[in-house]
């Protein structure tokens, strides 16, 4: 998540950025004609606010920058935004013409392969590259002098003496080679002679916490954040391999006093929950094509952030940012792991520099599992206290987990922020292990946090004899989730839910519910340019990349709405740092950040368009109206349909109509263009997004197999821009959640420190056989925060699924499975131990 750029976290940075926004209209406002006040010119605007279809639907008045467009009506009144719109690039994707990084072919391009460590912890004594250098086709070799991604020692002098970077996980890159074919590079990579001095290692977080455990770092270490977030807080106290725990609570600080809270509690529930390490496993691995030239570096990258990749390249190679160009036409999924240049990028660029030719490096599936990120594990001890009526009095979470050689294993977000409770304390520790570093992964910390919190709330409901949905209605203040619970409960038939363990046969069915919370982050580095050309063609340009979420199409919708065209009329050029700066796509920020800039730019260019066309037609811009691909010319201002300012009523009548194209031909110059950057949100108080998911499962108590049969996922994301693509993200989020809940597990062998399942066979991700019926329901919530009022969906969609499944498993069997993945073995063990206590009927 892009915490660094979030205005909530760093208002000062956001304000600094806003100050750069130029506001030409300010000059027209006599009260603001002092130059230093221009940038503050504002006006009052009434915007829709509330949840459509509920009593809370209303309006809100905001102070907004004077040059921004008028309030956008709710979706039902719009022509393009909010309508399901097929992806503009759909045709390219279904014909195989969409160009991904591995499809880039440059003249003279070389292929690279990486040499990685076979040991989880080692000092490298020597590296002999001579055989590799002489191998057929080899054009360059490179030995890494620095490894990115791992945490770094605060005090560098504490590092073990060594000629080469210390190896801290099996799979850590050591060297690389570029050759004229991939096969030659693969062969040559096997010819490096690396002499290791293996060192003691530990890959298990419980072992690593012990006093005498082998140390991962010989001193305190921090992991630098990337644009996509991940990484834990800096400067945390560290003892042995354990950093922290960091004490926190709602908005970053403990709330109240948990001791008092538990003393006041009439009921307490507690449990220990364990979640595994999950790897991102995008179908396209990390990869780049780097083309080093005298005058700069061009990189084709599979990334979620063209700008963040450029920044890291510029910093590492000491280039000006303007000398680095990053291009991402299409990319095959990232889920948080693809933000920086990373070792992959640096290796390719170094090889390209040495060889004087472009170099392509795509990671193998194995390296993808080992070295470029994962979701940290967690062991969470959660205790919740409440009054008999359900009111929460205290929440205490103690958790630790491993992010390997990285940091950021905290899981406290949901416990801190989901429910109303006066006393909240979370204590989150990171445990270093000799395993690949974590990276941001779709809602860092939240799916694991929800697995514990939402099961505990479920248990509390049972203990109190209150329905889990009804309990949440009492303790959850979010109006959106209230509505989502209502809709979801109705849809899944929550009233069918029986007492836990009601089925008498071997296959038991049950229903469960869980919810998510996520936060509104805005990346201020979001800018667009919109161009209209005399032939009537319209283009939008931005550096933002489409990682599959569909922003390419949404940008076209926004421009089309403003100009009265169809989305397919708009040419979208994105994914290139040569265009105006775009946000990195992490933390569900893309749509909420970039669409206001797109609309503002389209609005500006529209004004110029109308002025020029009006003057060519001898009328006033206010008398023109865009819509349906036409420019209608009226005899008076058509917006004053109810009467003029004196209250005389009249109706504007259209005089004539010309096509957008005919109108564009009247422009004075070949092309007009306007650019807009993101202005600050109109309202800066904290906002969250979320969702409620209901799962229906069948548990075979003889085999331990859980089958998820149906999921109803009800979500909010502000103004839904393109329901078609939102729905797809919800489906995908749910499925990733099921995959996490039941199957995925990065398994390291404690004796060798090696991953035993670095593939897609034994590292199982959910396939079509295990896919349940998924019903996505979307509510439409307005908060009057920007010129589009759009938010994000990627992360909230995956957060609650595992917890909802776990609660359904409990409802089916009467037995709680507190460890993920909920494999048949774990289910059987839980049933067995409950049987021992006389807890399960079969």
């Amino acid at each position: 998540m892009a915490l660094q750029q979030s205005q909530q976290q760093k208002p000062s940075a956001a304000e600094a950025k806003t100050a750069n926004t130029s506001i030409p209209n300010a000059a027209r406002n006599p009260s603001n004609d002092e130059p230093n006040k221009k940038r503050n010119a504002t006006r009052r605007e009434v915007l829709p606010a509330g949840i459509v279809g509920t009593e809370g639907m209303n309006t809100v008045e905001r102070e907004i920058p004077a040059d921004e467009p008028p309030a956008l009506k709710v979706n039902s009144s719009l022509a393009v935004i909010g309508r399901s719109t097929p992806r503009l690039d759909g045709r390219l994707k279904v014909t195989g013409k969409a160009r991904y990084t591995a499809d880039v072919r440059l003249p003279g391009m070389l292929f690279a392969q990486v040499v990685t460590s076979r040991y989880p912890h080692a000092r490298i004594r020597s590296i002999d590259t001579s055989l590799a250098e002489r191998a057929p086709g080899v054009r360059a070799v490179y030995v890494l002098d620095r490894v990115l991604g791992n945490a770094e020692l605060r005090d560098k002098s504490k590092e073990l003496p060594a000629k080469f970077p210390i190896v801290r996980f099996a799979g850590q890159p050591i060297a690389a080679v570029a050759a004229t074919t991939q096969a030659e590079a693969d062969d040559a990579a096997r010819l490096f002679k690396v002499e290791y001095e293996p060192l003691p290692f530990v890959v298990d977080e419980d072992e690593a916490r012990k006093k005498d455990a082998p140390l991962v770092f010989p001193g305190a270490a921090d992991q630098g954040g990337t644009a996509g977030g991940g990484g834990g807080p800096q400067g945390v106290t560290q003892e042995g391999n354990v950093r922290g725990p960091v004490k926190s609570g709602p908005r970053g600080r403990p709330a109240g006093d948990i001791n008092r809270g538990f003393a006041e509690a009439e009921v307490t529930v507690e449990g220990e929950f364990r979640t595994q390490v999950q790897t991102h496993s995008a179908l396209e691995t990390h990869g780049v094509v780097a083309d080093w030239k005298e005058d700069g570096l061009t990189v084709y990258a599979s990334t979620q952030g063209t700008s963040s990749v450029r920044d890291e390249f510029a910093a590492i190679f000491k280039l000006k940012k303007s000398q680095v160009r990053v291009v991402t036409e299409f990319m095959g999924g990232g889920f948080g792991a693809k933000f920086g240049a990373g070792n992959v990028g640096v290796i390719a660029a170094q090889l390209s520099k040495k060889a004087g030719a472009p170099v392509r490096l795509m990671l193998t599936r194995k390296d993808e599992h080992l070295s470029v990120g994962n979701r940290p594990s967690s062991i969470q001890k959660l205790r919740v206290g409440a009054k008999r009526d359900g009111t929460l009095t205290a929440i205490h979470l103690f958790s630790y987990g491993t992010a390997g050689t990285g940091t950021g294993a905290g899981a406290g977000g949901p416990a801190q922020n989901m429910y109303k409770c006066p006393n909240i304390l979370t204590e989150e520790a990171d445990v270093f292990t000799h395993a690949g570093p974590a990276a941001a992964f779709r809602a860092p910390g939240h799916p694991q946090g929800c697995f514990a919190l939402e099961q505990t709330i479920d248990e509390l409901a049972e203990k109190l004899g209150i329905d889990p949905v009804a309990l949440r209605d009492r303790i959850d203040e979010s109006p959106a989730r209230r509505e989502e619970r209502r809709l979801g409960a109705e849809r899944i038939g929550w009233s069918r839910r029986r007492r836990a363990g009601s089925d008498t046969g071997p296959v038991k069915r049950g229903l469960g519910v869980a919810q998510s919370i996520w936060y509104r982050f805005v990346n201020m580095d979001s800018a667009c340019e919109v161009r209209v050309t005399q032939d009537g063609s319209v283009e939008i340009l931005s550096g933002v990349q489409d990682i599959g979420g569909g922003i390419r199409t949404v940008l076209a919708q926004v421009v089309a709405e403003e100009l009265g065209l169809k989305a397919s009329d708009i040419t979208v050029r994105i994914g290139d740092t040569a265009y105006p700066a775009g946000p990195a796509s992490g933390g569900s920020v893309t749509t909420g950040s970039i669409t206001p800039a797109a609309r503002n730019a389209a609005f500006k260019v529209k004004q110029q368009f109308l002025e020029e066309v009006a003057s060519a037609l001898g009328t006033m811009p206010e008398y023109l109206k865009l819509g349906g691909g036409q420019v209608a010319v009226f005899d008076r201002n058509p917006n004053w349909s109810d009467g003029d300012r004196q209250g005389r009523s009249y109706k504007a009548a259209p005089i004539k109509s010309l096509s957008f194209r005919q109108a564009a031909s009247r422009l004075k110059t070949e092309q007009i263009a306007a650019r807009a950057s993101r202005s600050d949100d109109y309202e800066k108080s904290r906002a969250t997004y979320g969702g409620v998911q209901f799962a229906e499962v069948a548990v075979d108590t003889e085999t331990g197999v859980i089958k998820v049969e149906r999921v109803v996922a009800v979500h909010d994301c502000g103004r839904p821009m393109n329901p078609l693509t939102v729905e797809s993200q919800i489906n995908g989020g749910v499925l990733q959640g099921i995959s996490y809940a039941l199957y995925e597990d990065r398994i390291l062998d404690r004796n060798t420190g090696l991953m035993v399942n670095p593939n897609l066979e034994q590292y199982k991700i959910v396939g079509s056989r295990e896919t349940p019926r998924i019903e996505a329901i979307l509510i439409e919530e307005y908060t009057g925060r920007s010129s589009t009022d759009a938010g994000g969906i990627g992360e909230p969609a995956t957060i609650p699924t595992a917890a909802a499944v776990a609660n359904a498993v409990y409802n089916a069997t009467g037995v709680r499975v507190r460890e993920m993945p909920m494999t048949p073995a774990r289910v059987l063990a839980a049933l067995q131990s409950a049987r021992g206590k006389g807890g399960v009927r079969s």
Partner: protein
Amino acid sequence: MTEGIRQKAHIEFRLNDEAVEVAFAPHKTLLEVLREDLNLTGTKHGCELGECGTCTVLVDGRAVLSCLVLGLDVEGREVTTVEGMAEEGRLHPLQDTFADLGAAQCGYCTPGFLLVAKELLEANPQPSREEIKEALAGNLCRCTGYIKIYEAVELAAARMRGEEARPAKEIIYGYE
């Protein structure tokens, strides 16, 4: 490497309804031959171990994982890749429905799914949802949640049977 292995193999086969001749290092997989020697990059690679299905192509109408097949093995056979699905400039009904219904999110898995689905519909013009799931079970998608892929296959199947079919219902806006 010995000289023998470095010598190129030379084969002829039919690719997307055209006769092709190609020379390549004999150890190459069909996937490599297609992407590197024939410059058809529509066929993707996700694992090169036969686990993900992204490299699926049709050989004599049957779906195969091109990362597990040697290029040499297709001598004299008929290979169809995603680039060959459209006929005379008209997209295959599956391509239309995948694009229209949003069955391609990042799109990386899409070519593989299209070809498996094509094989399915040729053998079974009216597959049930369960049969579709079973047919697609060898192909992984990390983005879409599969649902829209099923819907696209169902809609294409209906259209290919000549039925008037409407796209599956889109998002439920809470209030029907």
